[in-house]
């Protein structure tokens, strides 16, 4: 990887943090003419501890739910001043700041057509506040607010299909990605930035602390998510369904989803529940079918 390090080492993220990998890949692909606007969450906290900063590009953090709105304001200001050309504006949020509390601002930004790339790093829970569930948390996962118990399987709802909801806004570009397939992710970043208008990338980023996985396995797990069909990597341009393309096919035959689940502590309680594992495999099969993955 030939990377200019715009996200500097020395931040305070945990070892093996998938989200920091995503940030480094993102900035390397975007280059230095980039303005970053980030939501509150792990990535902001670990990277901006005053008087230090990990950011070598202009960076602004305002609050948890408004990265998309702040980015809208920056886009408007640069347009008003005739300084918009040649710059990327990238809004970044975790799954909580994007799927949940920041969803309205994201929708507003997409609808108004701001020339902003929004990147959601998805670690499937609120990690910064101690691993609480978000609407991205998958069925069956154990978090501190969806604990398994006598009357609970863990999280009892399925993950919100955010990228599809974004696609319904007809943005210039929308894609899902994984830090496990970094070239695919970086290509998508470049493609998104080459287009005028709003774009969105959801990048899957394992969290060793929240998922209870070994630090050195993050990339492997991020790949497993794709290879089991649990995460489908696709892209779509200009809101046109005919352009929908799966960019990374899982191997044939697909690996069973249990291979992805069993390496993670957050699914441990499911391992002696074959009927639940079957259910999850069925979700995955149905999704793969919908996307023509197989």
């Amino acid at each position: 990887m030939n990377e200019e390090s715009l996200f500097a080492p020395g931040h305070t993220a945990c070892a093996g943090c998938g989200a920091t990998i995503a940030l480094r890949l993102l900035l390397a692909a975007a280059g230095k003419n980039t303005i970053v606007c980030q939501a509150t969450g792990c990535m902001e906290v670990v990277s901006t501890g005053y008087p230090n900063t990990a950011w070598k590009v202009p960076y602004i953090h305002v609050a948890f739910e408004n990265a998309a709105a702040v980015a809208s304001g920056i886009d408007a200001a640069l347009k008003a001043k005739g300084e918009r050309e040649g710059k990327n504006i990238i809004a970044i949020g975790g799954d909580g700041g994007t799927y949940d509390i920041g969803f309205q601002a994201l929708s507003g930004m997409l609808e108004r057509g701001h020339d902003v790339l929004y990147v959601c790093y998805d670690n499937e829970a609120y990690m910064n506040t101690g691993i609480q569930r978000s609407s991205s948390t998958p069925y069956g996962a154990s978090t501190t607010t969806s604990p398994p118990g006598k009357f609970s399987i863990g999280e009892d709802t399925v993950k919100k299909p955010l990228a599809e909801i974004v696609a319904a806004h007809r943005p210039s570009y929308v894609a899902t990605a994984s830090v496990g397939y970094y070239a695919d992710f970086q290509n998508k970043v470049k493609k998104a930035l080459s287009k005028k208008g709003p774009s969105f990338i959801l990048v899957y980023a394992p969290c060793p602390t929240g998922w209870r996985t070994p630090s050195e396995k993050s990339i492997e797990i991020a790949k497993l998510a794709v290879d089991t069909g649990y995460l489908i990597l696709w892209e779509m341009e200009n809101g046109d369904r005919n352009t929908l393309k799966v960019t990374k096919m899982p191997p044939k035959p697909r690996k069973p989803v249990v291979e992805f689940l069993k390496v993670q502590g957050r699914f441990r309680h499911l391992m002696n529940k074959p009927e639940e594992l079957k259910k999850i495999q069925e979700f995955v099969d149905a999704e793969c079918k919908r996307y023509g993955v197989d």
Partner: protein
Amino acid sequence: MKMVLRGNMATAYAAKLAKVEVIPAYPITPSTLFPEKISEFVANGELKCQFVKCESEHSAMSACIGASAAGARVATATSSQGLALMHEVLFIAAGMRLPIVMAVGNRALSAPINIWCDHQDTIAERDSGWLQFYAEKNQETLDLMLMAFKICEDHRVLLPAMVGMDAFVLTHTMECVEIPEQEEVDKFLPPYKPVYKIDVNNPMTFGAFSSPDNYMEFRYATQLAIENSVKVIDEVFAEFEQKFGRKYQRVVPFMVEDAEVVFVTIGSMTGTAKEAVRKLRSEGKKVGLIKITAYRPFPADLLRKYLRKARIVVVFERNISLGYGGAVYPEIVSVFANTGKRPKIYDFIIGLGGRDIVVEDIIKGYEMAVKAADEGREEFIEWIGVRKEDIEVIK
């Protein structure tokens, strides 16, 4: 040029004269005319600005923050629930030292839902680090908005400001307003030059995470900035008077020289209170009035100066800090906390939710306050115009 304008229109004209570059906004009664008028200016090419049609007030203020941090001159308008929805980001705008200017049509907060005049919305945000100005007339809405940009953008200040105007009484009422010439405004208000801004050629981090080791220093610096603004406000008011001929003061005295009883008012009720003063004066009573134009920074210096000689100070206010009394009252009391000779200070809650304030109400307050002082009452917070008999007490 003179025009007959509603208060909202006057603030929109102020934004136009200030050549505001970005206006993110979301409509709410009674401030809706502001974004409407701005979008009309933009549609006609009268104002070259980016009008960001936001999906909420929270996002509107967030976009203001982004745009201001990127170096643009920024304004917006809101009221009541809209201001309350901005609450979180108001503190951030001030903490990040961004000179955003906002017109607020002062309106009651829910519940019960009510769209009429009340200062509760802005009073509830008085601790946010925003400067607060209150207009008495439509001319003041325009002038204060213009001056607010100059004050806020001053490098000794760098803070946001809200200009309050009473719902309907000002926002929707037509008054003759002198609109300054663009050339004159350009001389008074040069383009905004930020000290720091988002710039790819000079990357900086805005909105960092701070530990107990440095948070207090940021807060203290912001407090110093708002203290500095006193001098800047006085300078800008003076320059404005010299250039445009209209005099502004943080606190405006009316017949206080020899007054034994002095009223304290904010906003449009001042006109009514002045009528009451004239009436009482005609009966030989030594009454005066103080209008607070700049509520934050709190004008303790001027209040002490003007109220010192009074026997009784009577505060009339359109807000209620539930569980206590009016929010302004204890602040006026504090002005005299450590002084030897001090006036009796009494508080009246009045005109909530747009209830009319008439001359007789003020006179009633005067009489109740004089009686209370004569009886030597120590604590005194009363409501004027409320029908206590209509209230069912749950026993």
